């Protein structure tokens, strides 16, 4: 067993590459999905029924489809639309498309529960447009959404492991190739699991910090 882990230590750079890809895919994916989700929340909250129906349809569809399946659809479907991406980018596109729906739903939920009065007070004080959104509405949403966005980020980190199936060189893929080379599956996958654990713990620490900030304001 000690020998196994020392073999892993020798392949640490490959594992690290995988870890970096996992982090990159998750973070870039989450940030893009959050931004697009915030935009998508607007039609979800719109008074126009057509806008609402179309955006809701997309969100509900994504919530019914497993991530792996969407990944395959993106992977095989994009070339049909004349878009050729490498596997890494195809994986990122899948993460973004999928999680935009989840982020939008999180933001919509919080937005609809925000106290209308605090927004109205801001309007009465002369806030409007982007400044109203960025100074009054968004900060309140971010504080309330911290834990939910954190959970979604953890979900994204875990979903990136599916990308090994389309040969994206993320953490699980790296672990799998190391174990296949040296045939030390136990040590490699345990190491990978512990690395995922550490990542998720980091996210939870971040969420905890946001929660502390939000707590004082409740």
């Amino acid at each position, binding site marked *: 067993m000690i020998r196994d882990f020392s073999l892993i230590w020798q392949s640490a750079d490959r594992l690290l590459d995988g870890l970096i890809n996992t982090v990159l895919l998750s973070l870039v994916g989450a940030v893009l999905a959050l931004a697009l989700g915030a935009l998508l929340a607007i039609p979800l909250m719109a008074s126009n029924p057509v806008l609402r129906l179309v955006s809701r349809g997309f969100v509900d*569809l994504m*919530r*019914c*489809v*497993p*991530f*792996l*399946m969407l990944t*395959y*659809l993106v992977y*095989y*479907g994009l070339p*049909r639309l004349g878009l050729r991406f490498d596997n890494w980018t195809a994986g990122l596109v899948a993460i973004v498309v999928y999680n935009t729906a989840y982020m939008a739903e999180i933001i919509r939920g919080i937005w609809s529960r925000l106290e209308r009065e605090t927004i109205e007070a801001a309007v009465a004080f002369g806030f409007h447009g982007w400044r109203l959104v960025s100074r009054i509405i968004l900060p309140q949403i971010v504080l309330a959404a911290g834990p939910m966005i954190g959970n979604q980020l*953890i979900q994204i*980190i*875990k*979903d*990136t*492991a*599916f990308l*090994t*199936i389309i040969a994206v060189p993320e*953490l*699980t893929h790296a*672990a*799998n190739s190391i*174990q296949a080379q040296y045939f*030390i*599956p*136990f040590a490699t*996958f*345990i190491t*990978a*699991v512990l690395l*995922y*654990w550490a*990542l*998720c*713990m980091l996210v939870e620490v971040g969420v905890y910090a946001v929660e502390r900030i939000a707590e004082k304001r409740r």
Partner: protein
Amino acid sequence: MTLNAFLSLLNGAGVTISVSLAGIALGVPFGLALALLRWQRVPLLAPLATVYVSLLRSTPAVTLCLLIFFALPVIGIEIDALSAAVATLALNTAAFNCEIWRSGLMNFSRDQIEAARTFGMSGPLTFRRIIFPQLWRTCLPSLVNEMTLLIKSSTAIAVIGVAEITRAAIRIGAQTYDPLPPMLVATGIYIVLVLVFVGLQRFTERVYGHAGGAA
């Protein structure tokens, strides 16, 4: 797509369903056992359960599946792909189910437990006769919600070659050199599958009240 191809997709759906149901059947009681250990603060075992839940909740199903399938034989436990698949889903869902059961237990009224004590009921008897009959009702909506998530993550078992629905679609795509149509049909079947569970969840919510904050 030929009828044969469609039938093999349905066959894949059958595998998805049966493996998922097996995972649920094992994972739900296992989750309850973990929750009870933590609720009762059983020395040694309770902290172990806490670590288990934290670890498993952050482990991707794909990685867990590979770990079980490739690593168990190394330490002398032979396991076939199907059993590894069931074990993956069960171990994974148990961690989430534990949180659901535990929040149900924490919210259970102390008064009722004390009342049972004053009637001389033992701990296990109180659990069986008083707590559990109410507990499962309050937890059911959240449990069904978790089952929906399990169905969605069950595609992970494709990674060790179990011929579940995505795997079946890939295989057909490889034969016809046209992967998109079988994948779209598979997606359609999946949506129906998930909608059945969502419907079940709505039903349990209506009958047993809203899903709690757990999961």
